[in-house]
């Protein structure tokens, strides 16, 4: 394949208290795919993302973003953590949270200015949250909070987007809105990697998929490898999913 490799993971092993949660993962994610990472609870899906982003330190292996270590490529990467990972009672507004997406390009000490505010407002507009810009974040619904997180990633104007369960606890409208934005990102040549739970929607939303359960089971185009065989290997005995065409 002539496609460039956006993310390359080599022999990655991660452990919590000496118990491996990811074991010897090799993974190549081509540029421009919209990829789902699927697997049962405790399969290490979030851990994989966090290790790629340098949030967790692996006990072995390495990760590269466009052939360079992550530390050198931060500007190319945006991250949407799980919504439940932050305290939504934090005293701040929707706009302010989105502005945080600009902090990376600002670097240490420098403060966001009008330019960053403008970018944040544009991102809010894109996710349909402009009318809520001054609202305290605890006053937003779950779907709105997820949109704010997405806007914060968009404002980073990255090449690669990592999202940890962006559809968790959001309403159907928000889910469609989010997936449409993700598909637009792919159209613009970006690489999007999503930890995903709903197997039914994999063929509809994604063109690339990675099966993970502590070890990597399979990775590749959805149309080639999203089948009962891989699902069974990932989720256990005789796992069947009826895929509607």
């Amino acid at each position: 394949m002539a496609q460039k490799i956006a993310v390359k993971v080599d022999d990655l092993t991660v452990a919590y208290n000496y118990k491996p949660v990811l074991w010897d993962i090799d993974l190549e994610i081509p540029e421009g795919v919209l990829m789902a990472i699927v697997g049962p609870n405790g399969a290490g899906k979030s851990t994989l993302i966090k290790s790629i982003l340098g949030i967790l330190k692996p006990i072995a292996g390495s990760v590269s973003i466009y052939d360079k270590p992550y530390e050198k490529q931060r500007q190319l990467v945006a991250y949407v953590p799980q919504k439940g990972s932050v305290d939504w009672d934090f005293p701040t507004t929707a706009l302010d949270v989105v502005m945080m997406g600009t902090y990376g390009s600002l670097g240490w000490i420098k403060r966001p200015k009008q330019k960053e505010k403008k970018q944040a407002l544009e991102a809010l507009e894109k996710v349909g949250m402009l009318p809520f810009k001054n609202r305290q974040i605890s006053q937003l619904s779950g779907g709105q909070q997820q949109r704010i997180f997405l806007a914060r990633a968009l404002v980073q104007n990255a090449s690669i987007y990592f999202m940890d369960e962006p559809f968790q606890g959001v309403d159907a409208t928000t889910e469609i809105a989010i997936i449409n934005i993700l598909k637009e990102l792919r159209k613009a040549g970006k690489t999007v990697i999503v930890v995903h739970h709903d197997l039914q929607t994999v063929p509809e939303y994604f063109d690339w998929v990675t099966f993970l359960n502590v070890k990597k089971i399979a990775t590749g185009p959805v149309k080639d490898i999203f089948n009962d065989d891989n699902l069974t290997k990932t989720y256990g005995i005789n796992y069947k999913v009826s895929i509607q065409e």
Partner: protein
Amino acid sequence: MMSSAQIEIQLIASLAAIACAIPGTFLVLRKMAMISDAISHSILPGIVIGFFITHDLNSPLLILLAAATGIITVILVEYIQKTGLVKEDTAIGLVFPALFSIGVILIAKNANDVHLDVDAVLLGELAFAPFDRFIISDIDLGPKSLWVIGSILIVTIGLLFAFFKELKVSTFDAGLAASLGFSPAIMHYGLMSIASVTTVGAFDAVGAILVVALMIAPAATAYLLTNNLKRMLLYAIGFGVFCAISGYWVAHWLDASIAGSITTMLGIIFLLVYLFAPNKGIIAVLYREKQQRTEVSLLTFLLHLKNHNEEEERHVNHLNEHINWQKVRSKTVLELALKNNMIVVDNNIVSLTEKGNDFTSQAIDYIITNEDAEIEHMKDDFFLFRG
């Protein structure tokens, strides 16, 4: 007319309050209030050892040594917690009494040799602070502890201005901060260092233990009043200074401990705000819950009207027993609906107005779809739909 000692005491207390409120705000937001309690106890051995070496409670070396004990506390707590054998609160409970007791034993063993009073360290003695002067070649530059706490405050404010955005993002979302390259560990230990240094520096003012009150109470009070981090910092500073000064005068009138009076004032202010804060206060919350109950009743009532065209179902008397409400409640709901022009009553038969009909449909749509955009304007009138 205030004496210069009185002014100096209030100045020291106020600067200590500001220096504590700044790290305190972030400790409260990080849900780490207990860590400040742990630090305040476990710096005792650091203070004692520092005092053996320097023989001066205001020596910078003593402050650094004691602050280092604070950091050791944090590291020990995290280490014990990481083993996964005990939870964080247990780890805190294990570490600080151990360090604290080492300090107590050190003082007891050497009580004859050095002049160091447990009470003075733990409870502070602000009244004596003006006697220990900072004198360079016969020029009196004011009380030493004023210089100590002033320097700590300047450093704290400098760091706050420089790293405000980093502190904010790492407190709100450590994962994002890490992915952006702002190491949460650096911010964490930076904050812990400032909290430790401030605790040591402020123990003259309120004592090593009551300093927890100056860190946590103003921030917790401010948290109830605002949804804006900068304002929370300013309010916390304001409450801290207010309590420092008013506490001093309470102590003056009652002839009581200054530290005790400041802490009492902090408690009183928190209680008042806890009761009367406009949005998050207990009274506001109870009032809002009552309103919500009424509004749910109103909606139930409107729905009933919408679902039934038969006149007997819409007769005032029938409604009473049908919806199974007490008379008072039915009356409140009926009046609320009338006041908002949602219903008309004709010959004791209740009907929905056009506005009432629209409102009910919108409300039902919202409840079913949970889509917020359409009912933004309804939110202004009714509590029910606010988060």
